[in-house]
C-alpha cells in the first residue's frame, strides 16, 4: 500500500513536472532570423530578460520557409507551449488558420492584426509608431539648420510609410516650411539589410540639403547612421536605442519596445489577456531616447516642447495622423 502510494505520488509529481515544463512560452522569429540587430533580436532580448528574471525557459525557432510558419505554430501548440509569441506581421495569417484548432493556447502576434472577435485566444500587439515618429520629427526640425530633413525607409510597406508620415507631421509642426525628403530602400525584403544602399541614399539626401536623417530601415539603417556620422550631420535611430552607435551624430532614437511586449506576454503566461493591445506613448510602448550619449545634442527648449507635445498626444489634444488608417498622409507625398 505504501509502496503503491509512493509510486502514485511519484507519478503525480512527474506529471506535474511535465505539465509545468510544457507550459513554457515559445517564441517564433520571422524569416529575418534571431540575430538581425533589429526587430527579431529585440524580441529575443525581451524573452531573455524574462528568462533571467524568472528563471524560466522558453523554446524558440528561426523560420526558414513560408510553410514553416503554420508548421511551427502547430507543433508548439500541440506540445502545449503557452503562450506562443510571434514577431512580424506575416504571422497574422497563419495564426488565423491555426488558433481556432487550439482554443486553450494563447497566441501573440507582434505587428500583426488578428480580429479579436473571431479569434478570442489571440493577442495582437500594435505599436503607434506614428506617435514616436512625430516626436523625433520635431527633434529633427529643431536640430536642422537648412530646413531640410531626410527619411530613409527600408522596404516600402504601409508600416514604414506610417513611420514616415508621423515623422513628417512632427517636422511640419515645428517648421511648416521645412522640406522632408523621404526615400525607401527597396520593395523587397533585402531592403531591410542593405547598409550600402542606405548610405548611398543618405548621401543623395545630403546632396539635396538634408542635415538630419531618420532611418527606419532595420539593418539598412546602420549604413544610414554611419554615413551621417561620416558626413557630419545628425541621424535618428529606430526600434532600439541606437544613440550609442555614433555619439555626437545620432541625435536620438525612436523607440519601439518589442522587447517589452515579449517580456510582458511571457510574464503574463497562460493568463495572458487577449484582444488588441496598442502600445503607444501613454503606455511607453513607443518613445524617444534620451541618455548620456545625446543629452548635449538636445537643447532644453527642444526637450521641453517635445515633452509638451507628447503630453498633448497622450491627452488627445494633438492627433497624429496614422497612415495605415486610410493609406494617405497629409504632410508627405510618396
Amino acid at each position: 500500500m505504501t509502496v503503491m502510494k509512493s509510486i502514485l505520488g511519484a507519478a503525480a509529481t512527474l506529471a506535474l513536472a511535465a505539465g509545468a515544463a510544457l507550459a513554457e512560452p515559445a517564441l517564433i522569429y520571422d524569416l529575418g532570423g534571431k540575430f538581425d540587430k533589429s526587430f527579431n533580436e529585440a524580441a529575443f532580448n525581451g524573452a531573455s530578460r524574462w528568462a533571467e528574471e524568472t528563471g524560466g525557459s522558453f523554446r524558440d525557432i528561426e523560420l526558414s520557409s513560408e510553410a514553416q510558419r503554420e508548421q511551427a505554430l502547430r507543433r508548439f501548440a500541440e506540445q502545449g507551449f503557452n503562450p506562443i509569441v510571434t514577431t512580424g506581421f506575416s504571422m497574422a495569417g497563419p495564426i488565423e488558420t491555426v488558433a481556432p484548432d487550439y482554443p486553450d493556447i494563447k497566441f501573440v502576434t507582434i505587428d500583426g492584426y488578428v480580429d479579436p472577435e473571431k479569434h478570442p485566444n489571440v493577442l495582437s500587439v500594435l505599436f503607434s509608431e506614428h506617435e514616436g515618429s512625430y516626436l523625433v520629427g520635431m527633434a529633427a526640425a529643431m536640430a536642422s539648420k537648412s530646413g531640410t530633413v531626410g527619411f530613409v525607409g527600408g522596404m516600402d510597406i504601409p508600416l514604414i510609410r506610417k513611420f514616415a508620415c508621423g515623422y513628417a507631421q512632427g517636422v511640419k509642426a515645428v517648421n511648416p516650411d521645412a522640406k522632408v525628403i523621404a526615400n525607401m530602400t527597396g520593395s523587397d525584403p533585402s531592403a531591410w539589410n542593405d547598409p550600402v544602399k542606405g548610405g548611398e541614399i543618405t548621401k543623395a539626401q545630403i546632396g539635396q540639403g538634408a542635415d538630419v536623417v531618420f532611418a527606419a530601415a532595420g539593418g539598412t539603417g546602420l549604413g544610414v547612421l554611419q554615413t551621417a556620422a561620416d558626413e557630419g550631420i545628425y541621424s535618428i535611430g529606430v526600434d532600439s536605442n541606437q544613440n550609442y552607435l555614433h555619439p555626437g551624430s545620432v541625435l536620438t532614437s525612436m523607440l519601439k519596445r518589442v522587447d517589452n511586449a515579449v517580456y510582458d506576454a511571457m510574464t503574463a503566461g497562460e493568463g495572458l489577456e487577449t484582444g488588441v493591445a496598442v502600445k503607444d506613448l501613454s503606455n511607453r510602448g513607443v518613445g524617444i531616447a534620451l541618455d548620456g550619449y545625446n543629452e548635449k545634442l538636445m537643447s532644453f527648449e527642444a526637450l521641453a516642447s517635445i515633452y509638451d507635445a507628447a503630453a498633448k498626444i497622450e491627452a488627445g489634444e494633438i492627433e497624429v495622423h496614422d497612415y495605415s488608417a486610410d493609406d494617405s498622409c497629409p504632410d508627405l507625398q510618396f
Partner: protein
Amino acid sequence: MDTMPRWADVALIPLLNLLIAFVLSGLVILAIGENPIEAVETMITGALGSTYGWGYTLYYTTNFLFTGLAVSVAFHARLFNIGGEGQATLGGLGVALACLSVNWPHWLVALPVALTAAALFGAAWALIPAYFQAKRGSHIVITTIMFNFIGAALLNYMLVNVLKPAGQMEPASGNFPPGASLPTFQDIFAFTGGTLFRGAPANITFFIGVAACFLVWWLIWHTRLGYAIRSFGQSEPAAVYAGISPVKITVIAMLISGALAGAMAINNVMGEAERLVLNSVEGAGFIGIAVALMGRSHPFGVFLAALLFGFLYQGGAELSLWTSIPRELVIVVQALVILFTGALDNMVRMPVERMFIAARLARAEAKRAKPAEAAE
C-alpha cells in the same frame, strides 16, 4: 563494355554519396557539441514518423518533383535551365491571377485553369532565354539566372502595386476564394476520421506531380519529340545531320521545362498558402537542379531524389524546432548532400568503377574466358 552494372550506377553510387554526406554532417554536428544520433532520430521521426510528418515531407517533395523534372527535361536537351526559380515565381503569379479573377465555384473547375495559367506563365518565362539561346547563342545559364532576378522584381512590383489589398502591410495578394482551395491530404483521407495528415500542407498536387513523372518519362522515351530532344542533347551537329532543328528543339524543350517549373506554383501557392507571397518559391528552383542531377534526369530517379530532399527539408525543420542545432547547420547538411550527390559524384564513382573492373578481371582470369574485345 560499360564499366559498371546498371544497378551500381543508379543505386549504389547515390547511396554511397549520401552515406558520405551524412557521415560528414554527423561529424559537423558532433563538432558543435550536439548528438548526431539524436539529430538523425529527430529528423526521421519528424519527417517520416507520423502522417503529419509525411504530410510536410510530401509537400516539399511535390515542389522538388516539379522543379526537378523541369531541370531534367531541359537537361536531356543539354540545356542547363537554372531559371526554375524565376519560372516557378511567374507560375505563382499565373496561379494568383487565375484564382483571384473569378469567384470559383469548386476547386475542380479552378484547378485546370490555374494549372494552365501556371504552366503558361512558367513557359513564357523560359521562352525568352530559350529564344536568345537558339537564335543568338546567348548562354542559357546566364540568361535564365538573370530572368530569376527579373522575375523576382516583376513579382515584387505586381504584389506591391497591383495585387496587394489596400492597408495590408505584407506585400502579398489577398486570400484566394474558398472555391479555389485544393483538397489537402487531410481532406482526402477524411474518411479515416480526419486525424491523418492533420494540418499538413501536402495536397492533391502531389498526385499531379507523380502523373507529371510518368508524362515526362513517356515524353522522353516514347515520343518522337523526346527522341529529338535526346538526340539534340547528345550531339547538336548530329541532330542537324538528322534533320532536327536546333532552334525548334531548344525552344520546345525550354517551354516544357518552364511549364513544369511553373506548375509547381499549384502546390505552394494554390495548395498551401492560398495567396501569393513574395518569396513563395524559396529556392525550390535551385534544389531542382540537385534533384535532377541526383536522379540522373530520369523521372523515377527524380522522384526518389525529390523525396530525399523533402525529407531533408522537413527533417531539418524538426531539427530547428526541437534541438538547439541552428538553422544554418541544417542548411549545411542539405548542402553536403547536394555537394556529394551532384558536384563530387566522380569522387566516389572512380574508385567504385575501378573496383568493378578489378572484380571483373579477376573473374575473367579465373574463367580463362575468351580474349576481350580489342581496344578501341
